């Protein structure tokens, strides 16, 4: 399929994702985000500081990607990033994966990993089907 040949870009976010760093980061990925159906994984494993500008940048990336029928996924969240995404309710908007590899692989699956796991649970004989 045509979609299978599209590249997935994995980009590691800097340790401080404040206004200046967010601008630099966005400049780095802008070229990719404006391509056709961009698939971007942002690795947040090294993030030790994330403020409103950083979160705004993540949202902007997602909006740009979705405009072109692509997606942005987050991977390997540091504790700080996880708390800040939860605080700002952003964790509900993004698909989040344990590792960048998992996130990159998830683009090739039709269903997101979470849904696939649910389906596997339902198929297991030791899990009774919901009434």
């Amino acid at each position, binding site marked *: 399929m045509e979609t299978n*040949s599209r590249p997935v870009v994995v*980009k590691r976010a800097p340790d401080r994702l404040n206004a200046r760093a967010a601008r630099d980061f966005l400049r780095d990925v802008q070229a990719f985000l404006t391509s056709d159906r961009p698939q971007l994984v942002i690795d947040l494993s090294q993030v030790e500081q994330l403020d409103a500008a950083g979160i705004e940048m993540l949202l*902007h990336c997602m909006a740009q990607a979705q405009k072109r029928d692509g997606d942005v996924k987050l991977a390997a969240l540091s504790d700080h990033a996880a708390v800040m995404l939860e605080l700002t309710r952003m964790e509900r908007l993004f698909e989040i994966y344990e590792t960048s590899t998992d996130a990159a692989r998830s683009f090739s699956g039709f269903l997101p990993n979470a849904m696939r796991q649910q389906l596997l649970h339902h198929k297991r004989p030791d899990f009774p089907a919901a009434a």
Partner: protein
Amino acid sequence: MDMRGLILVSADDREDRLPFVAPPLPLFDVAGYSPLLRMAKRLESSGVSPVVAVVEEGQPGFSRAQMLPPSIDCRPATPNGFWRAAENAFNDLAASGADLVLVVRMGAYAEIDFEKFVHSHLGRNCRVSRVIHEAETLDILCISGSRRNDAASLFRSGLARCRSECEYFVHQGYINPLNDARDLRQLAIDILTLKTETPTAGREIRPGVWFAPGACIEKGARILAPAFIGASAVVRNAAVITRCSTIEHHAHVDCGTVVENCTVLPHTSIGACLDLTHSVAGAGQIVHLRRGVVVDVHDQKLLGRVSLGVGARLADAAVNLPQRIWRGLFGGLDREEPAASPALTPSSELLHEACGGETSAELAPNLVIARRYGDQ
């Protein structure tokens, strides 16, 4: 009988606990009153008066004066001179005619029946009595005022050893170790769910919801029991406070924010449309109890500090004036760049620069590109 109280509050920096900006947790308000004040009130209600507190000075730059209850005679002490100050305070109490001195080191907040404790001490005719709870000794002692040498040996060993035989009094009531932020949160839950004898600072306006005087709840805000809103705290429109949350005095919760199972410390401002859950928030930090992490938040939009009143600001400025003059004269040479600039850049500027600037197809060298299928 003349009974007097001595409360000792020292910073106990253990590595196995969730660190917090200021270690002596007994100074933080929980449902309106700090554990220190609750203990002092408990002592006073048992006929132990006056109560003196010796409080260890904290980290430089941290204003502890605002946290000390004005109703107690609080004596600050340096970390090195803490036990010396405690011994001096005991000697002062003994010299002023105390028959018995009840010494409480916090640490743990325990609801001791002090009357029974004193009866036990007098009944056994002992010099020093100590409280035990589940076979563990607590740093809560009753010392006869005339036994200064026993007291000196105790203070010089950090309450670990006594030169004479020590009798024990078994405590079976409420106790909270107050080791870290998790225990501080648990104390708030226990107070709101009435597991403790100590009350909240406010008036119960409906079952399980306490408001302190001056609390401002805007129309449209929702407070679900049990909850506590402290004095002069503000909860704005469409905010939700739920699951044993306590909003301490002068804290602000902005529009649309959900505070669930949290303690918001005094003078803390929580930004709009946020989800603060299972945390203790304040002093530029969020201690997330489920994840077991402490996160420094530099962004004032998310977690800020409510400015003080004019009088408090003037007093604060007067205290810091010499330090500011010193910095002004000599601080220019080694001034550090601020760790993080607050997120005040408008989004349009950020996005315009990024989008309108470079449109080159060449990607940065630190990008990793992976193909989804194939042998690569």
